[in-house]
């Protein structure tokens, strides 16, 4: 699927969409992401939307709100959003900030999230399943 205005790639895994947010996301791209995902859900009829944030070293209230809104629009189109890969340091900070994101479903890995929708992703070994860790990239 063509990247939309947000430039965050939306992958169609056959019935579910995988969105991997890599690194810094400017505010306008975060807002565009909401539109991109909503359009992609309606075009593909996806049942699930997996949002992988293992690449993010920070989530502030602005991005938290965008993630919650992505999930809310997906739900209105009968798709379920699942957040995957939050780093422990990000989780601690978000809770202290007062944003525990209660409306968002979470899974540990993309594989686990996909299996909720009956989609099996085989771990090829060469691509470790995204999982939020605080290991700094070397």
């Amino acid at each position, binding site marked *: 699927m063509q990247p939309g205005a947000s430039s965050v790639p939306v992958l169609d895994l056959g019935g579910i969409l995988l969105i991997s947010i890599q690194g810094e996301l400017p505010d306008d791209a975060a807002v565009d992401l909401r539109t991109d995902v909503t359009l992609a859900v309606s075009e593909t009829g996806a049942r699930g939307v997996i949002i992988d944030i293992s690449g993010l070293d*920070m989530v502030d*209230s602005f991005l938290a*709100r965008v993630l919650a809104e992505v999930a809310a629009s997906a739900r209105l189109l009968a798709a379920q959003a699942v957040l995957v890969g939050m*780093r422990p340091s*990000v989780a*601690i900070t978000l809770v*202290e900030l*007062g*944003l525990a994101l209660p409306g968002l479903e979470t899974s540990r890995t993309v594989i686990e999230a996909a299996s909720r929708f009956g989609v099996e992703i085989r771990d090829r070994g060469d691509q470790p399943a995204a999982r939020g860790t605080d290991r700094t990239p070397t």
Partner: protein
Amino acid sequence: MSTDERATVSLPVRNDADLMTVRQRVRTLAQELGFGLVQQTKLVTAASELARNTLIHGGGGSVTVDAVSDAQGRDGLTLTFRDEGSGITDVDRALRDGYSTAGGLGMGLSGSKRLVHEFSVDTALGEGTTVSVTLWRGHASHGPR
């Protein structure tokens, strides 16, 4: 607080791209000062919230980052956000969870306060707002270590 200033970095907060620069610079400075990963993340997140307030509510301004240390020899970083916007009408209300005059979540100011050790707001209607925060290295932000 008695502090001796060692390094000052000043950054503009005028647009979206500046917010990213602020986050990156604060992250780098916190790393250089030996802050742990959780502390880095807390400070960067507070910086992002406060810089966005400077931009959106204050009409833009600047942030200065100071490496500081206190009488006990603790090292820390102080971030000072300044704007010349409309000021905050009621600081107590603005510091309440969920209070927003802009349709936001209203967690930026109150949440940032929880992420740091020291937090102060200086504001005057029609003149602007200065928010200053400090995080000391290797010290839990709540209670005694």
